[in-house]
């Protein structure tokens, strides 16, 4: 564990990307193979099954530290991280030992069948034999959420440096539903069997937001345009008679969308399609909250299937006849895609999104202005000659979103953030005016600078009217412009509306609370854009 905890400290102690990659590459080149495999697993969001609840951890830690549980619970939000709070609160360890990362993970997993008393004894023993940084890591192994400030991309780069394997190829090898039990380091990374992992998706190609006018992109004929749908990015895989559906977050979501069981009736084996999952009826998308009802369900009722049927708006073809065709130009890939999808009957769960034809940029500007009428968030621009690349990179794919909707609202509640934002007030509830009353209608967490968060934190501390646990009611004084992408009716909210992607776009120092927008303004927006 020392080696892994040292890696963690090194990654934590530097803000330089190259130093992080170097530290990780050294680790991948020198750690025992099972530890390498687990490190890849942890850094890509996989973790050992939880065998101890967080409630148990809190109770045992408070007991071991000799403090009442309430004091632990009060300390936790200030630290902002459970694993860290426990590591800080425990008394210094006794004699420490050094076992490997995999040893500790195995010992955590071995707790599953044991009675609670034995689990407690094992955890207390572990805490007592680990140094504080190792304890933190150990607790993280149990609670999950191991980020270490390393993206999958950075990890892949380090692994590429340590193994000499091409980065794009590695990114592909690390995709899919492997676990450290199903694979060894060799079978995952250095010598994979290409037929062993039927469900393995390709890394998604991701776009950056366009920051300059599209005119800067060069001749319009080099570019293809599509609507940018407000759905879930998905990759549909048909191989060896089976089908798999992946979300962009590398989650296998096949069972939430039974519509695609029929895909094999329509499409040949060895086909992989990239597209957008949207709830769709009568030739048009339903609002996002219809799709929202389908997200994360293990089984779907017939009623829900009728109310919110889902289709894949197919916009790219990555594999055809079992061949990886990502290196072909977009134009070729979409031509092949069209040949596949166009003949499908109307009840097939796949659609070709409507084509957008334009000859000059001015025309495209005008089309973009109609995005909301087309239930889209704007346009996607893709270079016709570009291959399908892996990950987020600049140059070939761009999001060209429409300007958000905005409303001026009064801050009424504040709550402290977590992690990097612990000890700062960053989570706020906003209200619109309704006569003399204030009606809360949304929460927002992002959009302010660090300096602004510092300022508002100081203000909240001095202007708290009441506390409800971690939430503080504050004087209704500050007005913020809230930007959002969409507005929908909602019976779950007091205000009757739900916003899509709300964030603070501006601190309206110039506006008193008495000039914030009203509930009627909000309802007008619902009528116009809902």
């Amino acid at each position, binding site marked *: 564990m020392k080696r892994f905890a040292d890696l963690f400290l090194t990654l934590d102690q530097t803000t330089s990307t190259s130093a992080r990659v170097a530290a990780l590459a050294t680790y991948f080149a020198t750690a025992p193979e099972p530890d390498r495999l687990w490190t890849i697993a942890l850094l890509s969001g996989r973790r050992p099954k939880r065998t101890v609840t967080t409630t148990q951890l809190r109770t045992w830690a408070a007991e071991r530290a000799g403090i009442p549980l309430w004091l*632990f619970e009060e*300390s936790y939000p*200030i*630290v902002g991280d459970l694993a860290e709070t426990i590591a800080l609160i425990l008394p210094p360890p006794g004699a420490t030992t050094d076992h490997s990362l995999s040893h500790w993970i195995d010992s955590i997993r071995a707790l599953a069948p044991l009675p609670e008393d034995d689990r407690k004894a094992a955890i207390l023993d572990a805490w007592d034999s680990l140094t504080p940084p190792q304890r933190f890591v150990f607790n993280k192994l149990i609670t999950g959420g191991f980020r270490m400030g390393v993206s999958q991309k950075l990890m892949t780069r380090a692994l590429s440096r340590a193994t000499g394997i091409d980065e794009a190829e590695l990114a592909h090898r690390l995709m899919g539903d492997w676990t450290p039990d199903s694979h060894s380091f060799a079978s995952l990374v250095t010598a994979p069997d290409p037929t062993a992992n039927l469900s393995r998706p390709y890394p998604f190609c991701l776009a950056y937001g366009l920051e300059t006018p599209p005119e800067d992109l060069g001749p319009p004929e080099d570019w293809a345009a599509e609507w940018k749908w407000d759905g879930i990015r998905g990759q549909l895989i048909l191989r060896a008679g089976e089908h798999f559906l992946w979300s962009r977050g590398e989650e296998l979501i096949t069972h939430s969308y039974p519509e695609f069981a029929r895909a094999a009736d329509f499409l040949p084996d060895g086909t992989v399609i990239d597209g957008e999952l949207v709830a769709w009826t009568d030739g048009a998308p339903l609002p996002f909250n219809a799709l929202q009802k389908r997200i994360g369900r293990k089984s779907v009722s017939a009623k829900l299937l009728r109310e919110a049927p889902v289709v894949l708006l197919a916009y790219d073809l990555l594999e055809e006849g079992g061949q990886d065709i990502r290196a072909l130009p977009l134009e070729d890939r979409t031509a092949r895609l069209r040949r596949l999808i166009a003949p499908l009957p109307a009840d097939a769960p796949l659609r070709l999104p409507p084509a957008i034809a334009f000859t000059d940029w001015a025309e495209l500007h005008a089309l973009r202005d109609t995005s909301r009428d087309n239930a889209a968030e704007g346009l996607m621009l893709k270079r016709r000659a570009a291959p399908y690349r892996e990950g987020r990179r600049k140059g070939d794919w761009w999001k060209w979103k429409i300007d958000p909707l905005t409303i001026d609202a009064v801050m009424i509640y504040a709550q402290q953030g977590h992690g990097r934002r612990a*000890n700062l007030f960053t989570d706020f509830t906003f209200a619109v005016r309704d006569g003399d009353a204030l009606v809360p209608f949304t929460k927002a967490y992002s959009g302010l600078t660090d300096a602004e968060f510092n*300022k508002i934190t100081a203000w909240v501390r001095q202007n708290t009217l009441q506390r409800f646990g971690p939430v503080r009611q504050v004087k209704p004084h500050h007005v913020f412009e809230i930007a959002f992408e969409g507005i929908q009716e909602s019976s779950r909210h007091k205000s009757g509306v739900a916003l899509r992607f709300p964030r603070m776009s501006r601190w309206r120092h110039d506006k008193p609370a008495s000039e914030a927008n009203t509930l009627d303004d909000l309802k007008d927006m619902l009528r116009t854009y809902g």
Partner: protein
Amino acid sequence: MADPLLTFTDEGIYCPQGDFHIDPWRPVDRALITHGHADHARPGHQSYLATHAAAPVMRHRLGDIRLETIGYGEARVQNGVSVSFHPAGHVPGSAQIRVEHRGEVWVVSGDYKVVNDGLSEPFESLRCHAFISECTFGLPVFKWQPQDEIARQINGWWAENAASGKTTILGAYALGKAQRLLCMLDPAIGPILTHGAVENTNVVLRGQGITLPDTTLVTPDLKRGNHPGAIVLAPPSALGTPWARKFGPASDGLASGWMALRGIRRRRAADRGFVVSDHADWEGLNSAIRNTGAERIFVTHGYTEIFRRWLEEQGYDARIVQTAYEGEAADPAEAPE
């Protein structure tokens, strides 16, 4: 019923019987000052009383004030109230103020730490009936490591940077913390440079006979290339500024009790965070309070509500005093310690 010996007014802590204030934040006639930090020693009072050792910094900060000084342990009697100043171990010259009237003793802690930092006069434990205690780090997650261990970490980091051709920039509060760090550094590693804000305090402290290692002030015409392997001591606000970038390849770090929390460390985005505080940690606060023998505890700056509840459960009559001290500043790494 007679007034309590010390009361809490809009101006600050007040002794009606002796007619004086302690660390008041609004202008008063007679102010007893625990130490020279800006949230305790404010401008505008008619007269000041502080320790001999705290006086030079106060004069430096507040200019031409009417300041009387007193030695540690020396008593002054005014209208039957005896006051004396006792080391608080916080920064050089810092004091707890003991107030006694007809056998009743109250102590105002000011800011304090119970461990000896080798620079400040070591904390003296006082018996009293009522203790007004700060609790900046009054949570059980705050536990300081021994100073030797921190010194080893900082010198190790500095030596590593020096070996790889990087300048080391260490951010710390300019009054007290920076000088304490100065005394922890190993001058064999390389030269020690200082930011003007830090050097100003160095000059004052050296002027009153305190020995500090040799330092070189960073001036606009200083040839930075002539100081390979240097460490630069600067206030936290100087980190990441054009001033700091002029040193070329560098590694920066912050020294503060708040660096105990990973979230704050990451938010500050310095390369390293060293947990060094001039306040008492959880154990320090608890032992200091225990050792006073006091039954009544008033808590100020910090996690007052939580700490008060904890003390009450330990059997104390514990209350919160609302003050204008800056224990819970929005950006804790910038807060005076």
